[in-house]
């Protein structure tokens, strides 16, 4: 199916099923468990109707077709406010990793569970002492007969308290092996030895966790990619985080800026500031669309996606920076669902230049890899 046909048919289907796909009463937005119930419901419905399977290879339960179809599905669901884009887009980060690096049987068995909403997965990369410097990670996996024994700590692991599986990076080489001694593993979260502790956050949504691993046994067949080559698995994953997931987030920002224009009292918005935020969004969407088409044409995405990430982060902050001046009462005192949402979205936007590689790390990548400025020293 091509994009035009997909767009027309999906839009018609969503229009027809909008009522049953709507957020249920009581599942207020930015209530994490409600958002997850809603996500599972929408994924299940769109999977059963086939939409969620387009753009994924047939060998993992997909229906084939361009990756643009996935991008459009996420946009269409986000635009209609049917899913929270952050948790929806984790599929876009984790499923391609399985498609590209998991043993074929494992990918075929597991990816449909993620696409259909039956399971939630998480991504165990960051550690207390390995944030921007991911190569410093210390969580250790030792090979023992047919299993890995994994011991260490992860942090900022989104949705770990709900997840059935985790794509985890562990140190398998010597401590000083840096990038060269890392292996990616696919870990069952109900394995003995895993403890998860959610982190209370500034925006009131405990979506990040600490994960403690104590002699956790992971079958060797759960290795993703080659032993000691986990760094390339991670490097292949990051451009996805900065492409399709980002297209969805752009659609979310478009909706929220539209909401703000509709809700702000007359005289409360500064025309220049609104114009700047809108123009950033215009350019972000233009850039992100280009990246989507390159991905669909088979291009291997790389450091140039750091440009997209910087644009997204700065645009997100420009959009939500309008809120304190336009809706101060709602943001600071409001108890209704809309106010809760403005408060949560505004506060979460403070993290836009931090998560997924900070603004400074992205600039370092641009300087080193795109401008070819040589090493920093």
């Amino acid at each position, binding site marked *: 199916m091509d*994009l035009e046909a997909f*767009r027309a048919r999906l839009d018609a289907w969503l229009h027809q099923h909008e009522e049953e796909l709507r957020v249920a009463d009581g599942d207020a937005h930015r209530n994490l468990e409600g958002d997850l119930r809603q996500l599972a419901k929408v994924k299940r419905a769109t999977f059963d109707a086939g939409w969620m399977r387009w753009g994924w290879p047939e060998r993992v339960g997909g229906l084939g077709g361009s990756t*643009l179809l996935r*991008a*459009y599905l996420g*946009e269409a669901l986000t635009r209609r406010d049917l899913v929270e884009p952050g948790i929806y887009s984790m599929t876009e980060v984790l499923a391609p990793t399985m498609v590209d690096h998991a043993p074929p049987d494992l990918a075929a068995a597991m990816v449909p569970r993620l696409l259909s909403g039956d399971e939630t997965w998480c991504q165990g990369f960051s550690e207390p002492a390995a944030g921007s410097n991911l190569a410093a990670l210390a969580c250790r996996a030792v090979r023992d007969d047919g299993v890995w024994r994994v011991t260490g700590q992860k942090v900022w692991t989104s949705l770990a308290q709900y997840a059935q599986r985790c794509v985890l990076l562990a140190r398998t080489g010597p401590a000083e092996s840096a990038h060269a001694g890392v292996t990616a593993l696919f870990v069952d979260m109900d394995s003995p030895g895993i403890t998860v502790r959610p982190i209370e956050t500034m925006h009131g949504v405990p979506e990040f966790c600490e994960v403690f691993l104590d002699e956790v046994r992971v079958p060797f067949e759960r290795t993703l990619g080659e032993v000691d080559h986990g760094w390339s698995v991670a490097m292949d994953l990051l451009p996805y985080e900065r492409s399709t997931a980002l*297209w969805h987030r752009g*659609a979310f920002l*478009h909706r929220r*800026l*539209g909401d703000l*224009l*509709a809700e*702000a009292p007359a005289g409360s*918005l*500064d*025309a*220049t*500031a*609104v*114009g*700047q935020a*809108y*123009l*950033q969004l*215009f*350019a*972000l*969407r*233009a*850039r992100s*669309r*280009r990246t*989507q088409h390159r991905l669909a044409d088979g291009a291997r995405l790389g450091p140039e996606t750091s*440009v997209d990430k*910087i*644009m997204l982060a700065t645009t997100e902050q420009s959009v939500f920076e309008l809120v304190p001046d336009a809706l101060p009462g709602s943001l600071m005192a409001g108890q209704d669902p809309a106010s809760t949402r403005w408060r949560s979205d505004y506060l979460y936007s403070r993290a836009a230049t931090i998560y997924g590689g900070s603004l*400074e790390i*992205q*600039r*370092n990548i*641009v*300087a*080193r890899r*795109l*401008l070819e*400025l*040589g*090493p*920093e*020293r």
Partner: protein
Amino acid sequence: MDAAERELYTQSVRAAVAAAQSSDLDATLSALGWHDALGADRRSAVAAVFEACGELGGRGPLDDVLGAELRPQQATDGVAVLLPELGQADPPAARHGDQLVVRGLVRAEVARTGTVLVTARHPGGVELHAVATTDLDVGPALALEPSLGWAEVAGMASAGSPLVADAAGDWERAVALGRLALAHELVGAGRRLLELARVHALDRVQFGRPIAGFQAVRHRLADGLVATEAAAAAVDAAWDLATPEAAGSAKAVAGATARQVGRHAQQVLAGMGFTAEHPLPAVVKRTLVLDQELGSAATLTREIGAELVAGRALPQPLPL
């Protein structure tokens, strides 16, 4: 043009613009078939010529671009088009009875002796007139950057019968097309500014190492690259959307970007970039003029924002 032809065309335009002196740039472009290409494949021609002019120096033929929408069939080939004065996008003249009050910008070489096509507002709409420049006061080339070859024109002329009686739609399309052309030129200028600063940062040694090794320098240049790529994508999107609003958005993004990159490049080049012998100052000055032509980033951004606030909604976004 298909992708391969476009690439070839772009390369030949770049080579020609790089080799041309500012005085013979127009002849060079004519020899390359610029006027024909403007009719046949407008997007490819405008993109190639204006990005090359922005990056390699030289005045982008903005009046030709407006002429492509304004000119009545063939009749006025070779007649220069009067641009609005700096900062403005309204027609450069107003007709009061049989008098035209003119205030605009024209290529300096035709200013004293030629005829110009003048778009004029009047209470009933917009018209196109031909006016002899001898009837007008023509100033010297712009003082900030005379090499650009634009001169201010002002004065009163008697209005004959218009060449085109209802030119309102033509003018709106001409401004939109001109803004796209300027946005390309600003993107090209941004790339040039960035490259000048990048080369300097790698060459200039202080404290025993190239200043490109310092994060403060690297991050300025990285921000410059991000902004320039954002502007390039915005211009592409505006061609696809093909609306006057999108062209204005692209021009606003490109203008703000070129000025920001100019500030970063100037700071990285430091003393070297402050000397008249370095190429930087001419590019910085050019970006200031380009930003003002057909409406500055500051004005457009405020207008776009005011319209959104008044309408309380966003326009349909660019489709995937």
